């Protein structure tokens, strides 16, 4: 078997108070669509940041592509869309094109001039937002902005994407498009996806692995076909039907 894309071994973490994660073990294999679900404040975002080396765990080991995250250098294989689009300043005077291009500004991505333009065009087309290319990022709707961030994340042809609630603030129809797109990239290009979501229904529909985060623990469910939404809802302690009527 290939080396796992992400591997967490006995990871524990606290922000100074009680542990928000305790002895967490996770393995994400190449080509996985791994959905992380759980109530607000369950430490899903923290868990993702630990996977990316943005937060250092108190105990345990974190590996990306078989390498300890501290000494991991192949960042071009990885892309990340933070929750709420990160701390993006809405007065940021950049066009969609410039923002997407900045997905290539990291290490090991020496694209310039024509080839950079081509890559940006392709990413915009993949996400279906060519028409927004010249617009300012601060003038877009929440849903459009999330698509821009997804394009930015795909522009460097990463092997794995980490998405933290990428569809919050997106209307139902665009949400479906968004998931279809991820499903396609996952199936056709073998893109590994790690996604935090509140949409349990979709998570069961397209993910092949689900991690339920609650009380510092992460329960992993493989063979998602076997588990029903109700089952997950029960574990998570909230009803999906109630959520749906909202």
């Amino acid at each position, binding site marked *: 078997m290939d080396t796992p894309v992400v591997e967490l071994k006995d990871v524990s973490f606290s922000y100074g108070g009680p542990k928000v994660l305790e002895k967490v073990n996770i393995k994400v294999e190449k080509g996985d669509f791994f959905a992380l679900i759980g109530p607000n404040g369950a430490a899903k975002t923290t868990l993702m*940041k630990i996977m*990316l*080396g*943005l937060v250092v765990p108190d105990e345990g080991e974190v590996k990306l592509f078989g390498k300890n995250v501290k000494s991991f*250098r192949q*960042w*071009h294989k*990885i*892309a*990340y*869309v*933070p929750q709420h*689009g*990160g*701390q*993006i*300043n809405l*007065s*940021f*005077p*950049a*066009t969609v094109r*410039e*923002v997407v291009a*900045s*997905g290539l*500004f*990291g*290490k*090991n*991505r020496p694209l310039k001039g024509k080839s950079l333009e081509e890559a940006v065009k392709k990413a915009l087309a993949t996400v279906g937002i060519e028409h927004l290319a*010249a617009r*300012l990022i601060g003038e877009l709707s929440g849903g459009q902005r999330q698509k821009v961030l997804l394009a930015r994340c795909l522009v*460097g042809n990463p092997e794995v994407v*980490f998405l933290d609630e990428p569809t919050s603030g997106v209307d139902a129809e665009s949400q479906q498009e968004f998931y279809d797109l991820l499903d396609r990239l996952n199936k056709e290009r073998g893109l590994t996806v790690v996604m935090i979501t509140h949409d349990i229904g979709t998570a069961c529909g397209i993910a092949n692995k689900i991690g339920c985060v609650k009380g510092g623990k992460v329960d992993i469910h493989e063979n998602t076909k076997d588990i029903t939404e109700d089952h997950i809802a029960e574990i998570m302690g909230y009803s999906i039907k109630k959520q749906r009527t909202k």
Partner: protein
Amino acid sequence: MEIFKYSFMVRAFAAGIASALVTSSIGVFVVLRRMSMVGDSLSHASLAGVAAGMLFGFYPFYGAVAFSVLAALLVEFVRATFKRYAEIALAVVMSASMGAAVVMISLGRSFNADIFSYLFGSLMAVAEEDIKLIIILGAFVLVALYILRRQLFSIAFDEETARVSGIPVNKVNVLFSILTALTLAISVRIVGTLLVTALLVIPAAVSLQLARSFNSAILISNVVAVFSVVTGLCISFYFDLAPGGTIVLIASAVLFVVLIGKRRVGKGGI
């Protein structure tokens, strides 16, 4: 033009335009990263450097450069080590610098007129030596900004995604602080320590109102700063005013006009 017959005015224009280009370029990043408070702290540190130079007999301008760079390193260290106290650290560096400056000024009672020129900027004060330093350091900052532009863009956009894309964020941040410190120090001659942050922030604020892309944002900021400096220097020459004040008032007026203009356009008034 009469104004160019005076060699001190030619020097003032050279220094002023160089300062304008550098402050307004780095200013866009400073404003986007909400670091204008850092600018304030560093410019106060540069005043302490000026006072130290006068007291201990080295060239005050070098003192300004050295102290503001040291303060930048100190601020970065505190920011990295005690994240939560970043804001307090800035306030402390700022007040401590001001305190040191005031103490050193009162120790050397004789140099009050000189210190005045560093506080508010001066037309006459720009020496041949200053020009050289301003142009060399200014060119260094501009080249460094150009080389780092992609990293700085990514970090200003979102620090965490920048980290995950392999950008050495901490190193770039330290470099950026040093560049900001150099920028402030070289602008002190013309605008003065008290007002230099305004030159850093106001042209950038105008550009954020008008720019339709990131590249144009830097260009607009440059244009506003050069315009403010050139008109400000002319006005302060003919009316015998401190240039720092006039320059900043003009830049503020530009910002005001742009804000009003945008409101009216927004309401369909024009």
